[in-house]
């Protein structure tokens, strides 16, 4: 049963990402549940979205230590949620840094050596410069789709499957941008 955790900072586009991954598994004939975050956390807080797929899914929330893949749109958020990954799972994260307010005010420091810290978990990790790649694709807002591209092989499915998902989920006027973003991410394999 695939469990995909999508984490980041409120406003980074986790809703679109979760809907893409949800549509992907639904197209595979699986039952899907997606749990989203709305409201206050969207104002720049730490946000988490859960996608679960299988023959039969009860809880929409992924238990700690049971995520197959964690997609993180920000490096510190990868560290915050890493314990949700299961043994042998994977963390795909954007190397983008967004300082939380306690770091900005000097009350805390942005953690150093996050890739080293992630090695404490028995998971594969892949760092992606999603911000630069999204700019290359044409808009920073497509960083979420770059990251999905980078994780697409881990998530499974063929190029055609993902092309179909993009068509189903992404609004028509942004489809070309997101196709480029996805392809640039997928090249990071």
């Amino acid at each position: 049963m695939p469990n995909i955790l999508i984490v980041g900072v409120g406003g980074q586009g986790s809703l679109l990402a979760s809907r893409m991954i949800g549509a992907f598994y639904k197209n595979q004939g699986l039952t899907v549940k997606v749990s989203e975050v709305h409201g206050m956390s969207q104002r720049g807080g730490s946000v988490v979205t859960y996608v679960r797929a299988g023959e039969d899914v009860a809880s929409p929330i992924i238990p700690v230590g049971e995520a197959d893949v964690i997609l993180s749109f920000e490096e510190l958020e990868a560290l915050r949620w890493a314990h949700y990954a299961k043994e042998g799972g994977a963390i795909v994260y954007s190397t983008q840094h967004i300082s939380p307010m306690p770091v900005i005010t000097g009350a805390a420091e942005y953690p150093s050596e996050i890739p080293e810290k992630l090695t404490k978990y028995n998971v594969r990790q892949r760092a992606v410069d999603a911000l630069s790649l999204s700019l290359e694709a044409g808009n920073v807002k497509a960083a979420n789709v770059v990251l999905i591209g980078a994780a697409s092989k881990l998530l499974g499915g063929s190029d055609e499957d993902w092309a179909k998902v993009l068509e189903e989920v992404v609004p028509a006027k942004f489809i070309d941008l997101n196709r480029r973003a996805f392809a640039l991410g997928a090249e990071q394999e």
Partner: protein
Amino acid sequence: MAKKMMLGNAAVARGVYEAGCHFVSSYPGTPSTEITECLATYEELHAEWAPNEKVAVESAMGASIAGGRAFSAMKHVGLNVAADPIFTAAYTGVNGGAVIAVADDMGMHSSQNEQDSRHYARASKLPMLEPADSQECKDFAKYAFTLSEEYDTPVFLRLSTRISHSQSEVELGERENIPVKPYEKNISKYVMMPAKAKVRHVFVEERELKLRELAETTPLNRIEDNGAKIGVIVSGIAYQYAKEAFGKNASYLKLGLVYPLPVKLIEEFAKKVETLYVIEELDDIFETHCKKHGINVIGKELFSKIGEYSPELIRNKILGVPMPQGPQDAAPVRPPVLCPGCPHRGLFYVLNKLKLAVSGDIGCYTLGAQPPLESVDTTLCMGASISGLHGMNLAQDPEFAKKSVAVIGDSTFFHSGMTGLLNIVYNQSPSTVLILDNSITGMTGHQQNPGTGLTLQNKPAPKANIEAICRALGVARVSVVDPNEVKEVERILKEELNTPEPSVIIVRRPCALLKYVKPQPAFSVNRDKCIGCKLCLKIGCPCISMKDGKATIDSSICTGCDLCSKMCPKGAIERGDA
């Protein structure tokens, strides 16, 4: 019919639509907001935003009494506002079916408290349904109208953050063609004065007895007998958590009608299992019911009344499975913040600088309490900023009013701030009220309100004039200022704080996230000029941080609002690339 992935809230809306509902009125509140937004997309029914939940429910009851099927959705604290009409609507009953959806927020993802709405069903003696996934959201919402008409009662539909904001598959149906019933004058049913209400109270008690009988037999309450030793009584999202934790290793009494509760059905279930647990988030309502009827259950001696549960927690408490390991390394917290370009930032900077006591309210601007702005002193409920300030100023010595203000958003002012302002005028406190008009209902995700000039469907509407409202309420001193003009904000504030009359300052600038607010070219820091004094950090903008001893601006999120450049004593913050 087709199957579709739907948010719980979208599925509730679909159920209301399919039930042939005619009239919908709500006030936004996370996690309930999307229900009414989705209902707005169905042209066959009338849907609207009301200024508050009380107005919404009263309008819905009017529609019901007139013969239409009516619906209102709100968050748990919105139900407090709407409680007055609901408790007496329990007596009048309905003509067309009336359904009230209420979404609780266990874990307080976006709320000021964690109250359990099931208490309201018991207190008002109204039936309450609780779905456990999106399909049930649709089915229960639809059935609630039938139940309402069959038993002559408003019906509650209880949701929670996880049910409202999770997507799962829903089988769609057609909209039923339900004609609006004829309106019939019926004084003894609809005029709740003592002589009539005494008769209706008898009806309410009789109805409750009938609903209790229904609770024993309704398919909404079902036993899933897995022949297991462990039995659990559950509803809503806790049912999903328990299923995840036990699978077929437990038997379930899954309650869909959570008020009134069955007795015989629980007794029958209790006989099938060795140990019976009640797993209910928040209060011990099912548990108390069981114990009152002499049924042995284990509940809150294991589980907390605080926060959300999880499958891990259930396995831990009941099976003794250790909780999974937490993070190996600490990560600094990332609380929500005012967005880049937020119009509230400039005002809170000034309020902090002047060290004023700030009576706060509910909205994005509650975030003004967070470091480094830390300029909100109180937050209680919608509208409490203005009334609270009045009490503060009259309780404290007269000098206090010269260093205290209330802050309230435009939508919150329309919701329940206007009466508080009238009270300030009537009872003559020298209060200074700031109305933060960002021209939208912000925190819930941009809903229209009486001041935006647009309806729920984004169609033109009369635009309420806040200045005129304040003057009409008797406030002689009304001024308007742009919060990004911090010097002007400070000047007006000092002037109004030092007048003995009540005054209102409308702090007006549209929300930076509104589509018509075009971002300006981003700012950047000229590193030659920057002296690293950190004054620009005092505004708490998420774009600005320190790098190698000097300030730096993240141009990918900067909206070019120019507030930071006004903080810099050296003119080091410049528009465009450095």
